[in-house]
């Protein structure tokens, strides 16, 4: 579904991504692991069109490179960025509406909001509150719901469990599995390697902007590199 090859991202003189190739098959969960600064977020941001990159990105056969972020989400790729980044002074309702405003309107838009409120009942309770007043976990739910409002076929999730309580982390991973079972394809960046590999069909390990290891979730869990670097064993 998504084919990335030889992707490079530079911030000024600093190369953040130095030739990453990866592929995300339809209906799968693919995870990117790596330490801070390994280039995981830059890879997602490049796919979503937020940062300029070289190399090739193809989605459902069509090239995406060089397209602006506004176009890429219209083609079916939504990014839930690191740190949730909800609009804090806007209500939950407005955050959701803006998520879908460029993709649907009228009854269709209302229907999408209803679907997300059914998926996340807590957002229905908080519907008229300012997003900045929600807890971290609630903000994460809102950020994901807001991305889903665009009706994506591929969801890019950047560190969705970061800074959340263990109970909420469970919820987030359950949600990711649930989204997969509904046909969504997911590319996940996670620090929580153990949990991520449990649900991943395939994974890539990034170090200083390059892929150093790839394999199925089970293969990666057994690999020495992942054990030493990312799993608490």
């Amino acid at each position, binding site marked *: 579904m998504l084919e990335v090859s030889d992707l490079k991202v530079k911030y000024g003189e600093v190369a953040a991504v130095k030739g990453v190739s990866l592929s995300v098959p339809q209906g799968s969960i693919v995870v990117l692991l790596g330490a801070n600064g390994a280039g995981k977020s830059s890879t997602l941001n490049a796919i979503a069109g937020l940062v300029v990159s070289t190399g090739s990105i193809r989605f459902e056969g069509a090239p995406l490179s060089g397209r*602006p972020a506004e176009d890429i*989400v219209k083609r079916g790729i939504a990014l839930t960025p690191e740190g949730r*980044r909800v*609009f804090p*002074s*806007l209500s939950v309702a407005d955050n959701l509406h*803006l998520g879908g*405003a460029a993709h649907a309107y009228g009854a269709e838009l209302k229907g999408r909001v209803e679907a997300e409120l059914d998926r996340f009942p807590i957002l229905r309770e908080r519907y008229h509150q300012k997003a900045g007043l929600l807890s971290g976990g609630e903000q994460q739910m809102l950020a994901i719901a807001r*991305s889903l409002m665009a009706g994506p076929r591929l969801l890019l999730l950047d560190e969705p469990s970061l800074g959340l309580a263990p109970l909420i982390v469970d919820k987030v991973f359950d949600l990711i599995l649930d989204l997969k079972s509904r046909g969504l394809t997911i590319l996940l960046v996670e620090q929580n390697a153990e949990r991520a590999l449990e649900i991943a069909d395939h994974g890539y390990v990034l170090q200083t902007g390059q892929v150093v290891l790839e394999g199925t979730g089970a293969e990666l869990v057994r690999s020495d590199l992942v054990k030493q670097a990312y799993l608490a064993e």
Partner: protein
Amino acid sequence: MDIVLQQIVNAISLGGIYALLALGLAVIFSIISLINFAHGELMTVAGYGMFFAAAVSLPFPFAVCVAVLFAVIAALLTERLAFRPMRKADATGLLLTSFAVSAILRVIFQNGISARPKPVPLPSGFAGVIDLGVLHVGIVPLLSIVMTALSLASLTLFLNRTTLGKAMRAAAEDFQVLRLMGIKANRVIAVAFAVSGALAGIAAVLWIAQRGSVDPLMGFVPVLKAFVAAVIGGLGSLSGAVAGGFALGILEVLFQAFLPDAALPFRDAFVLGFVILILIWRPDGLIPAPVARRS
């Protein structure tokens, strides 16, 4: 008592004009970090709009519409021709661009129209005074207060009720994420410039209603004051801009009314001295803008 109420009316009407101008600056700054020094020229364009409308003998209400329309079109043109090509520039680059736009427009006014003030005829009723029992209020300050209130109310409705308005508020908080939602950056920015132009146009009408003429430098002083107002309020904060505008208007009228005659020529020095005190007390302004988490 009468004199106090008069001064309150004056303060609100002057503060309202500063608030509209500061708001126009804040709308742009909050979204693209541009300090738009050409904002004053948008006022001047609106002034010439009134002048031309009067020259073809349009009735006054239409002249007001023409003025606002001129300012909106000028704002959109400066965005399209000058600021959009410079979008990737840093804040300094954008600031210098706005200086250039401002200088070019002023030269066009001076050489293309006239360096001298052009009279703008006002309805004869504008000289009148309304008698509200104890209070004698001039028509102009009263109209100015009403116009300001209507403008602020419509802008609040626009920002809170419409999708584009919400998108503008969201853009001020996190423009990148708004683009991730598929909302076009160019459209939101163009709308921000249109709103900013409309506010400058309305302020220009109120400004001209007090002086009855337009000249190439007309916008300079009020917009300079509006910068001060925007800084008092908290640069980039919309409610701050309104608060700062009214604060500055009140300060000016207060010092004008209560300074001894000998000190009156130094009124602006007193006002700005007080502004410094406010900024020492609250360095980020009265109502600071939320700190942007990422550039």
